[in-house]
């Protein structure tokens, strides 16, 4: 079935979606972790925020970044473990996960 056929049924399939909000300084490091843990992609948004800690150390480049990652549950969990280990103790960072429906699960390493 041609996926670009407008009448093909829509197969929404659940995958895991993780949002990471962290101080901007950590951007390169976190994206490196994501690459190493094998995610198929990510999206980064500039944001600003307040939390427990919220040290805006490098305010010259903007406050926080919000990173969104869609992947298989195990990959998301591996990312969460890594970030918890490295940054929860001393850095300004939060994570939250949810299930979302996508059309091409294979794109995100799920099926």
């Amino acid at each position, binding site marked *: 079935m041609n996926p670009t056929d407008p009448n093909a049924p829509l197969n929404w399939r659940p995958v895991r979606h993780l949002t990471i909000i962290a*101080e901007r*300084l950590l951007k390169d*490091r976190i994206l490196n972790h994501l690459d190493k843990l094998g995610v198929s992609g990510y999206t980064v948004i*500039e944001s*600003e925020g307040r939390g427990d800690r919220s*040290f805006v*150390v*490098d*305010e*010259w*480049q*903007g*406050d926080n970044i919000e990173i969104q990652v869609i992947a298989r549950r195990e990959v998301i969990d591996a990312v969460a473990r890594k970030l918890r280990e490295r*940054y929860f*103790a*001393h*850095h300004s960072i939060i994570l939250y996960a949810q299930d979302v429906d996508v059309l091409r699960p294979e794109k995100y390493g799920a099926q």
Partner: protein
Amino acid sequence: MNPDPQTGKLAASRRLPQAGDLAPHASALAPAPSPQPRFCFPPFRYRHATRPFAKPMFSADLLAANLLSPMVLAFALGMVAMSLRSDLEIPASMHSAMSIFLLLAIGLKGGKAIALSDPSTLVIPILVTIAAGIVVTLLAYAALRRLVGLSTVDAAAVAAHYGSVSAVTFIAARDVAERVLGPTEGLLVALVVALEIPAIVVGLWLGQRKGGGRLWVSLREVLTGRTMMLLGGGLLIGVLAGPERAARVEPLFVGLFDGVLMLFLLDLGMAAARRLRDVRRVGVRLVAFAMLMPVVAGTLGVFVAHGIGFSAASSAVFGAMLASASYIAAPAAVRLGLPEANPSLYLTAALGMTFPFNLAIGIPIYLAAARWLAS
């Protein structure tokens, strides 16, 4: 604004359009139609340093003059706006753009100065600067451990800031010094670059001693960081392009420098006011440190600079450099290299207290010290 006696002999009618025309203050000030000394970089000559100066100003006048510059007033406006909870906001990307501009402009100017000077004259000042940066870092560390009572990691983190340098404080000091004590050496910018890094390295080493071998990772991050790329890259471009080719980009990087600095200080005033809100949390002893450390380091700097033969004006600026605390390069490096340290401490001290202190009171003190020493 440094009316330069050397160039002033051109008759006004013969005057070609000149950079001074873009820096109108200079010509406006000059009693005679002498054009623009401000951007001219005389060959380096720190050996025939102290020179008579026409109308010495008193420190009170100096203080007032300093406080009434548009830059300092913009800083105050930023602080006021923040404390009135105004909805005034400088977009983050505008702030980034301004800091890219300022760092590159400072670098270019330094590069031009170096291109015009004899390289051999640079060696001693650079070595002395590096040594001074390390000494100030260690001094600050000792004071923070013993007198302020911070933990090892926190003391190391704060010390890294005080050993390093604030480019904006440097600019502000040079500006006043040139108006009051005469021209400064162009190589000072190169010394800013040299002063930036060693303290951060020493600070990270002090704080990481017990931890592990993260030092090299941190070092790499500092050396390839934004600040070094722009300041060092600008320096290199200035040296390689040479003064003539660099002149083409000067309407932007020299002509607009003061104006952009004013906007930047508006933003910095808002940031400093935000920092000041944490002042209760940092303790009275750190507040005292943030006021006294600059005076100690600044005076030290003036003496050292005088010792290696700098002019009074350059000595005052060198003092201000040592007295200043970094709030752009150091915080980022320390946050990544010493995440256990409490950022409230170093941010509040460096940006919330020491920066305004130097801007308002410190710089006049270093100027006075330099003038006294030179007389």
